[in-house]
């Protein structure tokens, strides 16, 4: 009997398997949207759609409010605009592209719940007499009745669940409040369409509601700063290649040739990342999270170069060097004139003061810390908190706290809470 039990256990052990989860973006096929008669929408039309909408149909699935915000991505000579809706249920969001068909606006895209893997198609319209006439007018006039109606579905199935949004008020972003997306836009583990810390993820970040990003920087063996979070190459973030161990053991050429991130992207250099952010996205804040203990001059040089490049094209953007611990602080202090370098200190309030950091960023688990936040803000320093993903805490920190920004794996949830409460 013992033998049989042992054999059964042994077989169970061998046959046990791990379930793979996925949440692929549904295909965007909608004949009407891709018909030859449709034309692109202007950025002005998207801007006028920015606002907080009441969910009149579909509230059971998405909640009663839906702040919507436009964003853009530049690819070569083309600029693609997106309208994103943010919901307070299960960190859900919708991302749509827009076109016009005569005097009707069409919005085509997909929805996703980050809590889980549910996703599906979204097809929406704004008829002429439901606001399209106003949106298509070539001048920026405030306020009007906008009704967005349509359907959503599950997976790639033809959508047939009704949706109706009614514009209630414009959204306002108080000056300098930052909605910061962790790891360039989100984690690989959340089954997003791109891998964390990739150029592709940076292009998605603003569609998820982010106004800024935190990216993780490591140095390769030949001192090229690259985006990578973990201390070692591993299957959480890269495809299997036989290369294991610390990033710093490999040269950039070796990594670039042999390593691909989970969704097939290359590990980007910091230069590629900053190039993307400055020239291809509306993101206005970059938090360089220093994940290595070594030469920070290369980081500083790139920071200075891209701040200049952004200024040259009138892009208002901040790039700050993140200092997570004492080791990195010691390296940072070796930089000439370090007190004038834009930086963000992630631990000690006094260290933030000592290096004249622009931002102090305590962990959210330390509480609202009103007195400390007041003290820092009185010195002209902004205060961010990290990394907050739970709706209840986000609501509390936005409604009761005094922070100037929140870092999250779910920027759509921060965007929902921040815009909906106004």
């Amino acid at each position, binding site marked *: 009997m013992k*033998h049989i039990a042992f054999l059964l256990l042994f077989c169970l052990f061998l046959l046990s398997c791990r379930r793979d989860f996925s949440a692929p973006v549904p295909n965007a096929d909608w004949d009407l949207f891709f018909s030859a008669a449709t034309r692109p929408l202007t950025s002005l039309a998207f801007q006028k759609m920015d606002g907080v909408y009441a969910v009149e149909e579909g509230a059971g699935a998405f909640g009663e409010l839906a702040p919507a915000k436009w964003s853009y991505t530049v690819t070569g000579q083309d600029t693609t605009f997106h309208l994103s809706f943010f919901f307070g249920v299960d960190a859900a969001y919708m991302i749509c592209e827009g076109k016009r068909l005569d005097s009707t606006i069409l919005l085509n895209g997909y929805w996703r719940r980050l809590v889980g893997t549910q996703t599906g198609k979204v097809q929406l319209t704004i008829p002429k007499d439901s606001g399209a006439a106003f949106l298509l007018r070539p001048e920026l006039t405030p306020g009007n009745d906008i009704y967005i109606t349509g359907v959503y579905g599950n997976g790639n199935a033809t959508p047939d669940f009704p949706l109706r949004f009614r514009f209630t008020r414009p959204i306002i972003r108080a000056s300098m409040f930052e909605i910061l997306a962790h790891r360039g836009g989100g984690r690989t583990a959340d089954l997003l369409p791109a891998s964390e810390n990739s150029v592709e993820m940076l292009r998605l970040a603003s569609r998820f509601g982010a106004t800024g990003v935190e990216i993780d920087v490591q140095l390769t063996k030949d001192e090229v700063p690259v985006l990578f979070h973990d201390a070692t190459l591993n*299957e959480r973030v890269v495809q299997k290649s*036989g*290369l294991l*161990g610390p990033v710093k053991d490999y*040269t950039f050429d070796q990594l670039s040739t*042999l390593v691909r991130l989970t969704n097939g992207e290359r590990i980007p250099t910091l230069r590629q990342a900053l190039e993307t952010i400055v020239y291809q996205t509306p993101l206005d804040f970059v938090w360089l999270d220093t994940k290595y203990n070594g030469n920070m001059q290369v980081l500083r040089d790139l920071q200075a170069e891209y701040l200049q490049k952004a200024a040259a094209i009138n892009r208002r953007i901040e790039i700050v060097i993140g200092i997570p611990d004492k080791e990195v602080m010691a390296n940072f202090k070796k930089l000439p004139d370090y007190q004038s370098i834009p930086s963000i200190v992630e631990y000690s309030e006094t260290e933030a003061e000592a290096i004249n950091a622009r931002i102090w960023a305590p962990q959210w688990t330390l509480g609202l810390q009103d007195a400390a936040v007041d003290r820092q803000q009185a010195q002209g320093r902004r205060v961010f908190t990290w990394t907050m993903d739970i709706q209840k805490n986000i609501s509390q920190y936005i409604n009761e706290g005094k922070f100037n920004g929140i870092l999250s794996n779910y920027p759509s949830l921060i965007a929902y809470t921040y815009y909906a409460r106004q």
Partner: protein
Amino acid sequence: MRGNKYFFILLFSLLAGSHSYGQEEEFSSQPTKRAQYAWVVYGGGGPGYYVSNSGAPQYLSRKISNLSHVASFRLMWHPDHLLKVGVETGHLTFYTYSFRDSVDREGVVKLKAIPVLVVWNMAVTKRLNLFAGSGVYFLRTNLDYRGTTTSKKTSIGWMAAASYIYPLSTTVGLGSEVKWMNASETSNGILSLQLQLVWKFLNW
């Protein structure tokens, strides 16, 4: 050749030594009487076949070698009941691949490991044994492409094996073992077939 010579000298010594004890019962992992304890070493080696999903980038022109060698050394405590415990180590190469990049530069990647595992064993019959163990794999990547790089990582892992041990004497057996070794964290698994020498070097 030198290595072979020492192996045969060792084998002969073991057989001769064991015979001198003059005990009547042949080697078995199954307990034969109460309050009988022993320490047993297992040494073995043989070919291994890497059976996990492709471990080389598919976009490269590459040649994967799934066949390699596996060597194991195990020390087990045999008490007077069926379940036994011990430790195992060894050396193995999971796989090797050579490749050419887009401008025809060549490279080679080798992934090797040294496992250190706690192993449980049960003798299903007098000669058939099942083993299962878990522990860590000390992995090492050797890369030769635009310079040489060696990098190390530790992964949790496990092994499962079945062996048939033929008694050569009261304290020595010769066996063959089918073994699956898996570094779980890095999803690398290898199936090996090993020739095994077993020596009950101490019993009381």
